């Protein structure tokens, strides 16, 4: 249902609440699937499920403070699980900013339509990778390329998966 605008033209962006523990369970599941799935399906490594969960809850909760804190927690957990070669804060910084942006945009736009979700997820995925490269280059003095075809494909794949994943996560909303 699209509740973004009423007939007077005033915006009524709905703030969605979720069932108890839904955010924790979804986050944990995303981290576990992200780690375990590529063991059996190597192509699945292209997905960034923790990022999709960050974007979804950011867009739905529409509270920048909550969005950025959730992004930070998910990012730091992902850093912790990525081995000691990944410093704590690499994913943390990127996902903090994405969580903030997603919830800020979610508070201004209707983000319920699948096309909007596809476009926003693709944009956030590219921004997330950009932030990672920026952190690596500036803070860690590592040489990383800004853009490649793999990134473009990964953005599209993640955006496509996000459309269906977000519909699934919509079921966790409290009516």
């Amino acid at each position, binding site marked *: 249902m699209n509740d973004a605008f009423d007939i007077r033209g005033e915006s009524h962006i709905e703030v969605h609440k979720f069932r108890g523990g839904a955010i924790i369970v979804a986050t944990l599941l995303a981290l576990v699937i992200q*780690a375990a799935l590529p*063991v059996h399906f190597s192509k699945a490594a292209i997905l960034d499920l923790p990022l999709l969960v960050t974007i979804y809850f950011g867009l739905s909760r529409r509270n920048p403070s909550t969005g950025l804190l959730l992004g930070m927690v998910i990012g730091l957990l992902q850093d912790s*699980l990525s081995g*000691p070669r990944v410093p*704590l804060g*690499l994913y*943390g910084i990127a996902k*903090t900013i994405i969580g903030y942006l997603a919830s800020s945009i979610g508070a201004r736009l209707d983000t319920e339509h699948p096309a909007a979700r596809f476009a926003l997820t693709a944009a956030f995925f590219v921004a997330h990778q950009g932030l990672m490269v920026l952190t690596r280059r500036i803070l860690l003095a590592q040489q990383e390329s800004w853009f490649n075809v793999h990134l473009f494909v990964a953005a599209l794949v993640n955006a496509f998966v996000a459309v269906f994943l977000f519909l699934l996560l919509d079921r966790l909303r409290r009516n």
Partner: protein
Amino acid sequence: MVAIPSRHKSLVLLAGVIVLQVLMLAVQIKRDSEGRLIRVWTVGAVSPFERAGSSGFGWFRTTWRHYFALQNTTKENEQIRRENDALKLQISQLQGKAAEADRLAVLLNFRQSHAGVPMIAARVIGTGTASLTIQLDRGERDGIRKDMGVITPDGVVGKVVESYPNASQVLLLTDKESGVGAMLADSRTQSPVGGQGEPLLVMKYVPNDDTVNLGERVITSGMDRIFPRDLPVGTVAEIKSGNPFKQIRIKPAANLERLEEVLVLLSLRPLEMKNEENTGDAQPHAPGAANPPQAARR
């Protein structure tokens, strides 16, 4: 005290959180600290779920490959088809178990043929995201320590970069920061082999004058003090002239993109890979490695 407008509070929080994480990054770089406590907690909390997830996906994959992909071929009547489907499902599960048993048998044979080298079998339960790492279902309690070598019967896989109580993380040979002391099997020319973040490895420091053949085997030299001599590393896949060294790319011997079970070498001291006829001479050096916990052995 200056009051912050409510609309700016989230921006201030964002700035604070980012600065905090940048400082955390800076501390890690300066002190070479790795935030071990946070990692231990996180891995300890998540690895049981990873184990369950890995088993679940394994079952799903086996079922998908051996059952759903084949079921279009059945044209019998409904009763026979139901029975047939049930039997196929059973077969697919048995095939999965048989395939796993075959893989474990290969690991066991390898272990038995290198009885002098203390090693332990471990299952891959997860992968890293940014770096080329895998997570194993065994850790410190099984005798696994940082910098131990990880292999399969096919060849070298990588080395342990972090060990937690019940899990450990392995940096694959293909990672940019990974490397192994190696040599060409025919000419015995020694040179380190390292990763580039790509499927192929690179052999550095082989002079242009040395003869190298495509398809030539590359084996461990034992000079890195992690892997014993003569373990397969890979085969020469590309050779180009460079300045002053050849640019040699190596196809890894182990299938690093599809690892399910591996062997961890339970020693931090140089080892010699003994053949069956002289295993009696093998003397593991590390005390902990010589007597790994019995429960840890598969």
